[in-house]
């Protein structure tokens, strides 16, 4: 298998972990996906530099770091240093395998009904910010922020309960 195909395989395997990292810094699903694609391109271009047996995620994150830096600087003029990314990456290292959570989350999502589900569609499918959702619904930004926070908390509680039940 060529280096490029091998890297493509690794990218597919670690897609969730890398996307979550990008999303943590730039919480917009479309932007995170775009940056992920750019990271893939660079990773495959630099495939020969990756040494088998070393930590692929750490290697790919160094590419992601540069993409994030560039995007932040261009979009909002914010600059962040390596210490910022070092701390963040070790926090992401402590997150359990996202694939395990996805099935539980899918099931929990079924319990989310109309109003909240619509909020999720606006936030994640259309990429609307809290302010844009507030404009669309006539609600206050504070109440949109509060509802999205509640949805997260309820889903997290549900996911953790399901995972612990499955392990019990």
């Amino acid at each position, binding site marked *: 298998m060529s280096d*490029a*195909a091998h*890297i*493509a395989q690794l*990218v597919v395997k670690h897609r*969730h972990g890398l996307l*979550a990292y990008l*999303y*943590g810094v730039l*919480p*917009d699903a479309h*932007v*995170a996906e775009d940056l992920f*694609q750019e990271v*893939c*391109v660079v990773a*495959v*271009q630099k495939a020969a530099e990756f040494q088998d047996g070393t930590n692929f995620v750490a290697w790919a994150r160094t590419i992601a770091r540069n993409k994030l830096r560039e995007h932040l600087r261009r979009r*909002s003029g*914010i600059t*962040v240093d390596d*210490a*910022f990314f070092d701390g*963040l990456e070790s*926090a*992401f290292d*402590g*997150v359990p395998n996202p694939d395990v*959570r*996805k099935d539980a*989350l*899918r*099931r929990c*999502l*079924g*319990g*989310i*009904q*109309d109003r*909240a589900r619509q909020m999720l*569609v606006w936030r*994640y*499918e*259309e990429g609307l910010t*809290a302010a844009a959702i507030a404009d669309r619904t006539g609600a206050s*930004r504070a109440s*949109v*922020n*509060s*509802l*999205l*926070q*509640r949805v*997260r908390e*309820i889903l*997290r509680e549900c*996911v953790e309960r*399901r995972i612990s039940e*499955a392990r*019990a």
Partner: protein
Amino acid sequence: MNAEEKDLLHRHLNGDLDVAEQAAFFAQLQSSPELRRELASLATDEMLLSELVLEGRTAAPAPRRTRTWIPGAIAAALLLGLSLILILGRGASTGLRVVAVAGAATLQRGDIDQPLRPGIALLDGDRIATAKGRATLEKPGTVVEVQDDTSVVLRDRGAHLRLEHGIVDARADGLVLSFELGAAQLRKANARVDVAPDRTRVEAEEGSVVVERADWPQLDIAAGEYARMEPLQRTTTGRIVRRAIVDDAVRRGCAFLESRRSDLVVPITSEKRHGTAPRRTYAELALLALHRAGIPDSDPLKAELLGSVKGRSVDSTYGAALQAMALAEIDPLAHHDRIRLCAQLLVDSQCRNGQWDYAVKLAVPDVPAAGRIRRRSEGPAAGDNSVTSYAVLGLHACSRAGIEIDPDVLARARAWWLQCQNGDGGWGYNDAGDAAANDASRRTATTNSSYGSATASGVASLAAIRDLQKDPRSDDAIRRGLQWLGGNFAVDRNPRKDPGFVHLHWLVTAARAGVVLGTERFGAHDWYAEGAEFLMGSQRPTGQWTVEQGDFMKAERNDVLDTCLAILFLRNRR
């Protein structure tokens, strides 16, 4: 993590920070490992959530704002990987075809998830996952209904379905439904397999089913029987009540409630012990019963009851508790604020001895919009065990809806139940050891010696508190309570009481205890089958139940009350 950090974190995830706030948030991230951990955890869920929302896309695709190019070589490499996955993942035809989908269901084929749609021909290796939806699959001689919140994988050209969790109903001959604990083979059968984390249940409505488990003898169950499997325990069997019969009884019960709709919202003056007697209606109870019966939210009576429940003040403990239970089951997010109000009323009204009395605090408090519901006042000195069990189950519902309850409130309630358990393992209406706590006005009917509904209340309450606090201190009390229930269980009366005395309240509370504890039996008694058979025999031709006898409940509209309770029992096993 302080409240300000938490607020910034969530607003960051909502795309709500301006540039200055964003920079401040990044600075806080750099200095707080806890904040970083929380961000990592939430961002992971957000990313998955975003994928799931896009998989179940409901609106027109949003325009992509940027990025359209991927160099050809990279695209080719990714496509090659994807093609390999698809080719390797593609299985043989199962012959099964999707004929109906209600609600949301997903087909996972290889690494690709897509909405499940009627007409799709299914292949070996396909996984069907439903959340709030159902799917019907068919091939000649076989009908498979994949129920809500279920995940099933198709194998062996459709002769074998692997049930990962949830419920599948199947009508087939020879079909194998496997699960973690074993497998069930249908023989000209109409059967249900229900896989939960703690147990698997196989029911044969018609025909027979062969149940196999590694290292255990094979078992045949005939029409009208179930087999229940738990890890490391013998398979138990019992009889079922046919779902079609129960469904018909529930439907007729709902029609009766519909015919009495004005009685559902007429205020009744409740019992009085301390202070003013609270007023309540049957709206909360009827709302919960209709919801359990599967009545859609668009139903005019259900909508009217929901409006009535949310549109007036809550005076009684029964009302607050039942309202929390109903709203939490209907939609915990949409009704979050109202459930929080119920939780706050219950918490602020707890008696000093750990019980609850009939009334909740009348002054509607300013309920904090978020965070733990804390005790801010004390209720009266004492109440009774019946209303206390409703309050505890109401708080349990609030907690399961994501609202954190002051742990001291639950601990105080637990201490009360442990203190007033009788020596025989049962419970009475109050603490037999404390004459001052007796309710003099009711003493002739409600005794402090053990009886069925009070004991079921004690077991259900302690089990609900243990479910929330994972505290083993009540284990022994629950075990002894279950022994009492096993030794005294009856469906034709509230055990150790006169016939008709709060009879259906007993059955419903016993069912609650059974459901919270995940047990099918009290002693040798299969509580659901026995209770359901009693209710099938006692339903009147008009669809109502009126089982209550004697004067104790004379202020109630017992036909409405008993019909609601009967529906709650029949649909309590979910």
